[in-house]
């Protein structure tokens, strides 16, 4: 798999100003589907899996979204490219661990992906910048409609779409938004937010999904319930909740600025000067520095950089992305040096 430098930086779903992109980095909509008459992926024999994969792939190729898309067979992909795809959320963690007969289709604009022989036979995924659940859902559902012209999905009147794990049964729909909430963390209101979220049947996770720790004040909020509610309700509830969180974060930001503007300003500029002058930066420190810088740009304290540049650095400073950019494998030390260089270049006054 080859990605040139232009594609590398233009990750459609992260750059480009989406709605509410000051606080919401990205929106993800994922739909789980299984083909009638086959066992679930993990339970299928090698022969069944091969037949399943070939009919799913043929069907996916017939849809308007993936007509000209490249099918990436994960067995043929090297470890670095697997990590690269994972960092872009284009394959699941599960697919990194086992590539057996699995593949992924990625649309030309990078926003739409179809994973084959994942936990479920097919997982359709749409990633958009900003808070844009309704549009992402409309793409996902029309892709699902197209696919259902070529495949008969496992479906029951009572339980809806049948999935390998009962936590996805019904709609098979999982939506999430990635939000940056530094002010809620600083003003100690983050617990309040998390409580509110879990009372609404939603979950909060770290930026890399299940089991990941919170880094750089990035949180992923997603629906937990898939059965007993329809898709529009799921989309609507998460949209409304996200808008409330945006409101909370905005208020907390004003509170911070009115109570301690100089301190915030100091933090923002300290972080920015380390980020733009350090010669070695590890992943964790980078995320910790990017957070106040992002807050600084959002509040207008820092005018030297753009949110776009920050969002790109969030993604492109991750280990696999750096190694793809360098065109070679690098050890941790070499990566930290390369990362610092990459960030300095990205924030050069002319580059923003």
């Amino acid at each position: 798999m080859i990605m040139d430098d232009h594609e590398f930086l233009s990750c459609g779903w992260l750059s480009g100003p989406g709605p509410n992109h000051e606080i919401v980095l990205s929106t993800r909509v994922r739909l789980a589907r299984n083909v009638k008459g086959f066992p679930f992926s993990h339970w299928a024999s090698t022969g069944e899996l091969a037949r399943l994969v070939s009919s799913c792939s043929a069907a996916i190729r017939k849809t308007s979204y993936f007509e000209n898309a490249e099918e990436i067979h994960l067995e043929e992909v090297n470890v670095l490219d697997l990590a690269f795809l994972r960092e872009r959320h284009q394959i699941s963690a599960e697919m990194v661990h086992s590539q057996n007969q699995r593949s992924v289709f990625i649309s030309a604009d990078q926003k739409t992906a179809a994973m084959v022989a994942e936990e479920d036979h097919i997982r359709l995924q749409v990633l958009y910048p900003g808070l844009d659940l309704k549009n992402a859902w409309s793409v996902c559902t029309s892709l699902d409609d197209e696919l259902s012209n070529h495949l008969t999905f496992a479906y029951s009147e009572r339980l809806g779409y049948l999935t390998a794990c009962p936590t996805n049964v019904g709609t098979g729909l999982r939506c999430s938004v990635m939000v940056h909430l530094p002010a809620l963390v600083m003003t100690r209101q983050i617990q309040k937010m998390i409580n509110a979220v879990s009372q609404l049947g939603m979950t909060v996770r770290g930026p890399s999904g299940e089991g990941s720790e919170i880094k750089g004040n990035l949180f992923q909020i997603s629906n937990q319930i898939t059965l007993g509610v329809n898709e529009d309700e799921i989309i609507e509830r998460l949209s409304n909740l996200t808008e409330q969180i945006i409101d909370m974060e905005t208020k907390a930001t004003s509170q911070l600025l009115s109570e301690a503007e100089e301190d915030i300003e100091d933090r923002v500029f300290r972080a920015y000067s380390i980020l733009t002058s350090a010669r070695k930066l590890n992943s964790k420190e980078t995320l910790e520095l990017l957070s106040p810088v992002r807050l600084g740009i959002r509040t207008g304290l820092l005018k030297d950089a753009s949110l776009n540049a920050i969002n790109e650095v969030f993604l492109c400073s991750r280990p696999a992305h750096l190694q793809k950019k360098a065109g070679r494998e690098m050890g941790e030390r070499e990566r930290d040096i390369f990362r610092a260089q990459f960030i300095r270049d990205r924030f050069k006054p002319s580059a923003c």
Partner: protein
Amino acid sequence: MNGKKCDTCNKPAKIHVTQIQDGQVMDVSLCPECAQKYGFMAPVAEMSVPLNEIIAGVHTGEEAAPISPPSTNESKTCANCGQTFRGFRDSGRLGCPECYDTFQEELEPLLRKVQMGMVHHGKTQIPRKVETNLIPLIHQKREELRQAVAEENFEVAARLRDEVRQLERELNQ
């Protein structure tokens, strides 16, 4: 950051946060317990409920509906795919779509706990476009069937009869 102690209790600090105190922004290092106590982190269980725990809850009957205690028949097996309820409990995954019928009773407490209801309210399976062409296809197969019978080609006839039945079933779905 390595080796830092919790600012309030001296246990190893795992969480480094920034906060405002008396109008001053300060960095604080906390152990997970104190972080939780002071509201910097949700309890692990709230962050995401691991599926195994949910499924284990089904087994012990925790919070499950008392009307129908969960079956302890762990060796119950899906006739279609051979997956057992124990296998599901261990892996968190069913073997095939028919497992939902096989383990309907066992799954009910789990669905009650993690889902909002027991009945699907969302999208319905959109009929395949080819199915709008089912009727001419059935006519064609019937004609072939008549011919096969006339030619006493019973093997082919039997297959065609099954295909016609299958198509009719699909049409009626």
